[in-house]
């Protein structure tokens, strides 16, 4: 018992160091790196929200191949109400998160009963349906060309402060930083709480969990709705940040990449899901020197990681430690 507690405390300390360094780095980055890097870190941080959310569904024992679906719903909800009705960004972002969460709530109760490979196909089908609906509903959504001129957000406190988010990247950088902090923080707390233990139990043995009196579908829906809510918020952010969106942004490839980032980083811990996007997106930027051959190298490196580090990149330090101890 004592041992357990001390191990846990040690882990938390180590984990804290990891998270704190990451946060410090992210705060310092705008001042030490040229502006070009900000756009990369913005996409990394929006991806982190998605990978942590995807992992949240994964720990309940369901593999979603449609995590781009709530992102798409959030993005289109926000873009439509901002351009057609002209609602303020800050209301848009909340509405789009709620919309994605609501749709996830309704769909979740239906589809989360299906398990395994069938859930993979259902979520894939859902995200494809969204894309073709968006293309088909041309007069409203602009069809395959999408929506242009989505207004950027604006902070306007009379007499105190006025920031208009134009094409300058810095405000967006801090906005997504805050979104990431809040959403990852909430999902982290959720997983460490009593609810999180139930969620983990669902993957390990949902039959046993059900016999213990746990409403397994309700808990799965909870995880699904939470992660979809944050995905919707990220979708809304992306729409207003790019000022433009089209259905292709939410294709199967996007969902596949969310899966890959999470897995390569390490699916067993939240830290892994955070490390994944950082390493892979920065790595693929570095690989851009290879021009057209970039995806090839990228694929080859992913193969290497999965063959030699099946636990993901997050297990790399532990691997070194074991080797040192052996000597």
């Amino acid at each position, binding site marked *: 018992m004592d041992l357990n507690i001390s191990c846990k405390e040690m882990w938390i300390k180590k984990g804290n160091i990891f998270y704190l360094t990451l946060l410090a780095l992210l705060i310092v980055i705008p001042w030490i790196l040229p502006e070009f890097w900000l756009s990369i870190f913005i996409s990394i941080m929006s991806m982190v929200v998605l990978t942590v959310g995807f992992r949240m569904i*994964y720990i309940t024992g369901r*593999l979603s*191949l449609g995590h781009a679906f709530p992102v798409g719903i959030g993005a289109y909800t926000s873009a439509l109400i901002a351009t057609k009705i002209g609602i303020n960004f800050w209301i848009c972002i909340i509405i789009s998160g709620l919309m994605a969460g609501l749709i996830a709530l309704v769909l979740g109760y*239906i*589809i989360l009963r*299906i398990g*395994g*490979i*069938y859930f*993979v*196909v*259902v979520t*894939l*089908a*859902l995200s*494809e*349906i969204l894309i*073709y*609906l968006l*293309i*088909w509903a041309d007069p409203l959504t602009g069809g395959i060309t999408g929506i242009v001129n989505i207004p950027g957000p604006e902070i306007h406190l009379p007499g105190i402060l006025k920031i208009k988010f134009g094409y300058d990247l810095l405000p967006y950088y801090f906005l997504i930083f805050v979104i990431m902090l809040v959403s990852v923080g909430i999902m982290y707390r959720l997983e460490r709480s009593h609810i999180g233990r139930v969620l983990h139990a669902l993957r390990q043995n949902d039959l046993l969990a059900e016999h213990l009196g746990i409403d397994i579908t309700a808990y799965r829906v909870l995880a699904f709705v939470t992660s979809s809510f944050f995905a919707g918020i990220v979708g809304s952010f992306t729409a207003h940040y790019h000022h433009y969106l089209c259905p292709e942004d939410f294709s*199967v*490839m996007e969902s*596949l990449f969310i*899966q*890959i980032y999470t*897995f*390569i980083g390490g*699916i067993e811990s939240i830290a892994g899901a955070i490390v994944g996007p950082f390493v892979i997106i920065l790595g693929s930027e570095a690989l851009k020197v290879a021009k*057209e*051959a*970039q*995806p*090839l190298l*990228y*694929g*080859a490196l*992913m*193969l290497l990681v*999965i*063959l030699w580090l*099946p636990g993901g990149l997050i297990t790399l330090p532990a691997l070194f430690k074991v080797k040192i101890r052996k000597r």
Partner: protein
Amino acid sequence: MEQIIQIIINGIVLGSNLVLVAIGFSLLIGIMRLIQFAHGEMYMLGGYGVWYFSVQLGLNYWLGLALAVFLVSLFGILLERYFLRQFRETLLPAVVVTVSWMMILETGALLVFGTESKSIPTVFKGIVHISDITISMERVVVSLIALATIGGVLAFMKNTKTGRAMRAVAREAEIASLMGVNIGSILRKSMVLATALAAAAGALMGPIFTMDATVGVGLSVKALVAITLGGMGSVGGAALASYLLGMIESFTGSFVSAEFAMLIYFFILILVLLIRPQGFFGFEYKL
């Protein structure tokens, strides 16, 4: 009336395009218990292979087809042995491996063959007239070849020892191995069969549709939908569902729009999964 028949024939051709890929995909999901996202790339490689041998090197079309199928199957053996076998019965790791291969093959094809799509001159010239309906000869021949291949695969699965062993492994790999089935050999054989079918489909469809490097992803997704409808692991179900999808695509494509066809596709899929998750002919997999 003529229009309807024309649409039906068109649907059969579209179904034939998918069916050989879907059968192989179904075998792989059934036997290896993983989603092989790089399966569509085998179709692409088959098409490019035939283009390379028959257009670039000037060989006979059939010789080119045989060579392409042979080489792609050889690649399939290596892929299965060194990259897929250890990820059997997993979902996420298998997705990462096969998507990596998908990216490698797609980019490789773009680098080697260039970005412009390739067309292969047709081998069967001429047009078939049946009263008022006109069909080009190559579509008839290709559809017939596809049908014959389905028949062949079905007979193979039903009557030969290897086919029976494959079905046994798909049902219950552990017990099949206790009964003396060599699992490794069955995995290899099923990969060869699936890959050869996909490559042959690419080689056959090359002259009808043009071939480009990005065709694989869409085809893999479509095949996944078809086999889920038909029942994972079931060859007949995959074939039936492919033709059904071809028909849906052809009918809605000519009466409403192509996007609407895809919408109907996926709605049917979700309905089927909710009512009968194992598909038309499948049995339930625990994966």
